[in-house]
């Protein structure tokens, strides 16, 4: 299968870092990159090689892999880096994707992947440039209140401005909150599945990586031609225009309209304050600037301004900025019944400051509010009185999640699954495969998609998008739905190996990817690409099973069936049938 050869040898360089011994080494793995193209495909293999499946995810023995792919630094919207690790939230495979400057910076630094092993005794940060790794003491950075300050400090100290990434954890990562994030640049994240806590356990505060180099191609004029076609298609496509104009919050109103917007811990599928927290309203009243990830002309990142007057001094204001997206608006807004836009921005800001995943945090606070109202927990546990819409109290609770002053917050910091097992309320604990729910209650596709997605993310197989496609039409039978979801997820393994942003999936069709690989000296037919996608999907599934993934545990929370979706109440029989078929399908796939 692997007669392919890489023109750019530097991509195949894997940087291994041992935090325990403070050493690093580089191995060239051309066969791995030629076969799997990079990203998810390569990271799966590297993690398989390096990770002992039995290890405690919060021990130094956990392994983190970061990987970019053949399109990184080569084609537009190849703007993601893939992280893979053992998740402290689910105890299973962790995979998270982030943008910012990191993918281009990593490739410009001359590495296709970075493997981080071991743990440091005292806090360190890594400075990776010019072919080497510097281990720098981060003791003084440990405990700094804001992750944004860490960015500011390292910006002044490290080389390659404009061509580097500053990835760091906040206090939540240091305090091992199981859904702590890693923050990149300003307002991009490895949000999901707790990479921040893994870094915290390793006493790894930050990684700064950067550089500048040339990436040779096989056919320069062919490359220029394909690049131009891709660039034109991306910048002119309506989908991309939509993300440039309002950003991902463009989804708030349409989801609300069809009745798919999870509200107040999914006790409702519509939010009466949707207008106030819509992409349109944020753009009108709060938008300060739109920015892009490196090498993405779309610029979907929307940054809002927070202008606050100091109470003690007349005419003295603080002006701060914070990124906003659909998911934080859902998790920290509609799920908590917050329609005060300014309040919501402050809550999003606090979550970024401490370095938490916005989605898991919002779902955790929503579950807590409902459990509190139902009397499963009391003020003795929560310290404050959670109430829908009360963003000030939620900010206090975010701080408690980090400081963990009592058993309740210690438990909540382990995730909603754990908290509901201890305190009750599993039926309204919105957790899928151990991961807190993304922002779509669009129908069976969304929820089954979260369950069977190998990282339990809405982006695994886009069930929410399949649902929306069928609104007002006849919904597919369970088997057809599963087939669609698995096919989509298999294809996305190719996209996340190249690595391109899923927002541009409409542009990077199999035929286009095949064409774009050619000037890079990589000949792959559409069929070969699809086969590769299935192979990576299988490899990832096997790794998940080795880490203890149990198909028989797949069950959506009861709440999902109680609140109507755009297709009415979701049928338990439908979901059961779909999952049974899925198990059958997967076992068949594994035996081939």
């Amino acid at each position: 299968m692997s007669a392919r050869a890489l023109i750019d040898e530097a991509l195949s360089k894997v940087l291994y870092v041992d935090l325990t011994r403070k050493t690093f080494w580089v191995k060239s793995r051309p066969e791995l990159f030629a076969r799997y193209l990079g990203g998810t495909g390569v990271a799966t293999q590297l993690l398989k090689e390096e990770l002992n499946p039995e290890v405690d995810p919060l021990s130094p023995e956990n392994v983190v892999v970061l990987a970019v792919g053949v399109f990184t630094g080569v084609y537009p919207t190849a703007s993601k880096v893939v992280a893979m690790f053992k998740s402290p939230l689910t105890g299973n495979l962790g995979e998270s994707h982030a943008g910012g400057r990191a993918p281009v910076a990593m490739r410009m630094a001359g590495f296709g992947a970075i493997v981080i092993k071991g743990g440091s005794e005292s806090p360190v940060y890594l400075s990776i440039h010019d072919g080497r790794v510097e281990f720098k003491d981060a003791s003084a950075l440990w405990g700094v209140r804001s992750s944004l300050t860490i960015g500011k400090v390292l910006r002044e100290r490290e080389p390659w401005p404009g061509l580097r990434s500053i990835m760091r954890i906040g206090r939540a990562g240091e305090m091992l909150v199981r859904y702590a994030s890693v923050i990149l640049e300003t307002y991009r994240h490895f949000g999901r599945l707790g990479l921040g806590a893994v870094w915290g356990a390793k006493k790894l505060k930050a990684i700064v990586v950067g550089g500048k180099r040339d990436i040779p191609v096989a056919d320069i004029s062919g490359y220029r031609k394909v690049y131009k076609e891709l660039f034109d298609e991306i910048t002119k496509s309506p989908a991309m225009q939509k993300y440039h104009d309002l950003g991902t919050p463009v989804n708030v109103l349409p989801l609300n309209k069809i009745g798919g917007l999870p509200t107040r811990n999914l006790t409702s599928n519509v939010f009466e304050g949707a207008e106030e927290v819509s992409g349109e309203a944020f753009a009108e009243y709060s938008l300060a600037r739109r920015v892009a990830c490196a090498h993405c002309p779309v610029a979907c990142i929307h940054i809002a301004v927070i202008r606050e007057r100091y109470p003690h001094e007349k005419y003295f204001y603080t002006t701060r900025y914070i990124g906003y997206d659909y998911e934080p608006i859902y998790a920290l807004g509609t799920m908590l019944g917050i329609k005060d836009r300014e309040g919501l921005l402050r809550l999003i800001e606090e979550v970024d400051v401490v370095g938490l995943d916005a989605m898991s945090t919002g779902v955790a606070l929503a579950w807590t509010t409902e459990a509190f109202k139902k009397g499963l927990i009391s003020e003795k546990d929560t310290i404050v009185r959670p109430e829908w819409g009360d963003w000030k109290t939620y900010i206090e609770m975010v701080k408690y999640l980090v400081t963990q002053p009592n058993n309740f917050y210690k438990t909540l910091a382990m995730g909603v699954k754990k908290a509901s097992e201890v305190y009750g309320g599993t039926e309204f604990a919105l957790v899928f495969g151990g991961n807190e729910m993304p922002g779509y209650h669009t129908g069976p596709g969304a929820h089954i998609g979260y369950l069977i997605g190998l990282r339990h993310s809405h982006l695994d197989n886009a069930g929410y998008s399949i649902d929306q496609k069928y609104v007002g039409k006849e919904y597919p039978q369970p088997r057809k739905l599963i087939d669609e979801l698995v096919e989509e997820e298999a294809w996305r393994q190719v996209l996340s190996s190249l690595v391109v942003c899923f927002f541009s999936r409409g542009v990077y069709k199999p035929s286009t990817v095949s064409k774009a690989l050619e000037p890079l000296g990589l000949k792959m037919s559409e069929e070969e690409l699809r086969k590769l996608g299935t192979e990576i999907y299988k490899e990832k599934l096997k790794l998940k099973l080795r880490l203890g993934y149990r198909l028989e545990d797949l069950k959506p929370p009861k709440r999902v069936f109680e609140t109507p979706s755009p297709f009415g109440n979701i049928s338990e029989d439908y979901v059961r049938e779909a999952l049974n078929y899925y198990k059958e399908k997967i076992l068949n796939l594994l035996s081939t």
Partner: protein
Amino acid sequence: MSTVPETKLKRLVVVDPDLCVGCMSCMFACSRRYADAGLGYTAIHVRSVGGVERGFSVIVCRACKDPSCAKVCPTKALLLRRGGGVILNPNLCIGCGNCRNACPFGAVQWNVYLNKPVICTYCGYCVDFCPYGVLALEEVDSG
């Protein structure tokens, strides 16, 4: 310093850096036109002005009429272009880096492979790859 005749009397201008989203498409275009993928040969540099929320500095060669870079070149490898700016004669360049250090805008980028400066040729290829109208080609008078 000698003057070389030049027919394309244009220069690259930054219309408004506040329109810049920091996508680096111009930098990739510049490098691609000259050589390959990646950023090894770009004559443009875009960086945030201290966090992307505050916007970007878009650093391009301004095609100075009286350029600092040429004045400090010990081998006269940078020839004055009619209408402003310079043209690099790579055969004379010894890679001393004086030009890079002298440009107050930091607009002389460095080609680490050749150990020579990357000098903008005002070709305008980058302009076609800026979707937000940050960059433009402007005619200059030939004086």
